[in-house]
């Protein structure tokens, strides 16, 4: 217990310094991840440089990286809306899955519709299905106070099992010669490309702006923030908390559902039970790293897409498991979570040997 460290609560730290501390944490985390790699006989410099080369080394790779960034950005936006309310939506995976399922249903059954109409219907179906998947736990939370963490998580497995059931059962393509897969969409059900990358990137950018505006400049956004800070205060102010929870989760789930539509339409061009691709989980990390700010989310997600894409590349070129990316992501967030402490408190070496600690200064 006796340590020569002095911990002092800080006043409000400037934005610049806060960002600095976080950047230092990220750098340290990469150093730490490098040290871990050394244990596995990997040269961290080589790994990191290969990751960078593999993700932004050529035009094609850059495009692939952007394709990875798109679902991550939109899913992160969905997660941040829920997290801002301290509704721990870890059901992004399931919401993506259900969005993909619903849009696939539309694509597979109405594949002859004109392209714009079909895509619009698919997007709506995806967003609605994702929204409903998010709404279910939200309703229980709003009406009964049911813990949402495990609820949303379990909904992931239910969605995955269901899609897997469809893929191996009723929706299985009879022409695939025993291969368990669902038929491909018609061309009308595939999102077009703009500047070499599917149009999802434009949606992602628009949604970043929209979510930013929603959270900061609308009454609903303000209400979500108040509910997140204090339920009692929200009630005190006459806010209708259940409807706020429900709205926020519809948006959160809807955005994730839209991700499902994009992935099904533009990337897989069909439905597979692995379609959520861990984006629902990774989005938790990115949203948190972005401090639940929509604009910051864009940049964090781009950085993470580099990591993800690069990790796939090192698997091919260096035979290093791409799961390394997940490990590195975890390490980064660990460090950033830990660094919050240094944003709130100042740690100094005490001059004398008696440990002293301090409470916050009030004005």
């Amino acid at each position, binding site marked *: 217990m006796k340590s020569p460290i002095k911990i002092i609560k800080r006043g409000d730290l400037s934005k610049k310094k806060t960002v600095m501390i976080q950047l230092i944490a990220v750098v340290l985390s990469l150093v730490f991840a490098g040290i871990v790699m050394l244990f596995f006989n990997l040269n961290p410099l080589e790994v990191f440089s290969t990751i960078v080369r593999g993700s932004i080394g050529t035009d094609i790779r850059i495009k692939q990286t952007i394709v990875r960034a798109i679902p991550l950005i939109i899913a992160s936006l969905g997660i941040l809306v829920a997290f801002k309310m301290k509704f721990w939506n870890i059901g992004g995976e399931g919401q993506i899955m259900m969005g993909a399922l619903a849009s696939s249903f539309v694509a597979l059954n109405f594949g002859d519709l004109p392209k714009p109409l079909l895509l619009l219907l698919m997007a709506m179906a995806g967003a609605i299905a994702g929204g409903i998947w998010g709404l279910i736990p939200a309703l229980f939370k709003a009406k009964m106070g049911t813990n949402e963490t495990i609820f949303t998580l379990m909904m992931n497995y239910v969605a995955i099992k269901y899609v897997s059931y469809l893929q191996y059962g009723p929706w299985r393509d009879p022409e695939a010669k025993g291969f368990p897969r669902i038929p491909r969409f018609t061309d009308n059900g595939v999102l077009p490309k703009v500047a070499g990358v599917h149009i999802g990137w434009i949606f992602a950018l628009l949604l970043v702006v929209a979510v930013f505006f929603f959270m900061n400049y609308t009454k609903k956004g303000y209400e979500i923030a108040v509910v997140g800070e204090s339920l009692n205060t929200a009630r005190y102010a006459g806010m209708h908390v259940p409807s706020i929870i429900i709205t926020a989760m519809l948006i959160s789930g809807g955005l994730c559902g839209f991700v499902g539509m994009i992935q099904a339409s533009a990337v897989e061009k069909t439905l597979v039970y692995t379609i959520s691709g861990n984006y629902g989980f990774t989005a938790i990390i990115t949203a948190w790293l972005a401090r639940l700010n929509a604009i910051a989310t864009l940049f964090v997600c781009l950085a993470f897409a580099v990591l993800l894409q690069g990790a796939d590349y090192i698997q091919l070129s260096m035979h290093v498991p791409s799961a390394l990316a*997940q490990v590195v*992501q975890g390490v980064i967030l660990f460090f950033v979570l830990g660094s919050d402490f240094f944003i709130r408190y100042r740690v100094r070496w005490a001059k004398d040997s008696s440990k002293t600690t301090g409470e916050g200064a009030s004005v």
Partner: protein
Amino acid sequence: MIDFLTAAVVATMPLLFATLGEILTEKSGSLNLGVEGMMLMGAVFGFSTVYNTGNPFLALCAAFLAGAVGAFIFALITVTFQGNQVVTGLTLTIFGAGFSRFVGDHMIGSSVPRAAQDFFGKVKIPLLGDIPFVGQIFFRQDVFVYLGYIMVAVLSVYIYKTRPGLNMKAVGENTAAADASGIPVNLYKYLHIVAGGGLCGLGGAYLGIVSVPMWQEDVVTGRGWIAVALVILAGWNPIKALVGSFVFGALSILGLWQGSMGIHISQDIVNMFPYLATILIVIISTHKNRKEDRPPGNLSDPYFREER
């Protein structure tokens, strides 16, 4: 039926160890949602140890240690650095999943050495194993299962009958009161988080070594999360945790056994049951009124002595 229930006991163990681990963690006031991650770490290190050394005992130690290290990271961030417990736990899950894939990548499809498999073969307990039905199901199991029973007994005594157990409860219920009573609260939190993580690691190892003696990715498949829910269902009580784990163990193997039981639904649909049942638990346990059944009072609240 007996075969099915015997297999259910095997499926109980991963859930049981993880649930017991999380009970320890939560009783001392921390909500660690990284159970899934710690189980995966325990599974991969347990497997790789037994795969490389052939020594089952070392494997268990490695699994415990792996879970404990994961939990230590959680403790460091949440207790010392006061990071958000929910997000830290989630990160631990993501990290653990990545780590187990990363480390286990080259072992996919490899089997547990024969000698070690024999070590975890069924052993009949004299007398108890002769009890018809009950004995056949519960007392003709492998040593790991018996370790599980012992853990239930040990933890029950620890929590309800010992001085450190009482102190631990005080830390979880009211950290400030525990601190003022002279209990070293951070030490208690660290120890119980780490020990809890170790148990989760053992739970993972059971999956990786005994349930399926061959390495495959993502062996845990949500059992860590089910364990988190089971803690609530069990009302933080180790004996009830055993019952709950058994029910869910049975549910989780229903998909494999339904054919022999004359039920014919898609396995994917049957495999949904444990998850749906977990949701049901979470909903039902929203309505718990007895004070003693409620979560520890200061569960997941950070504590800094000077912050009042």
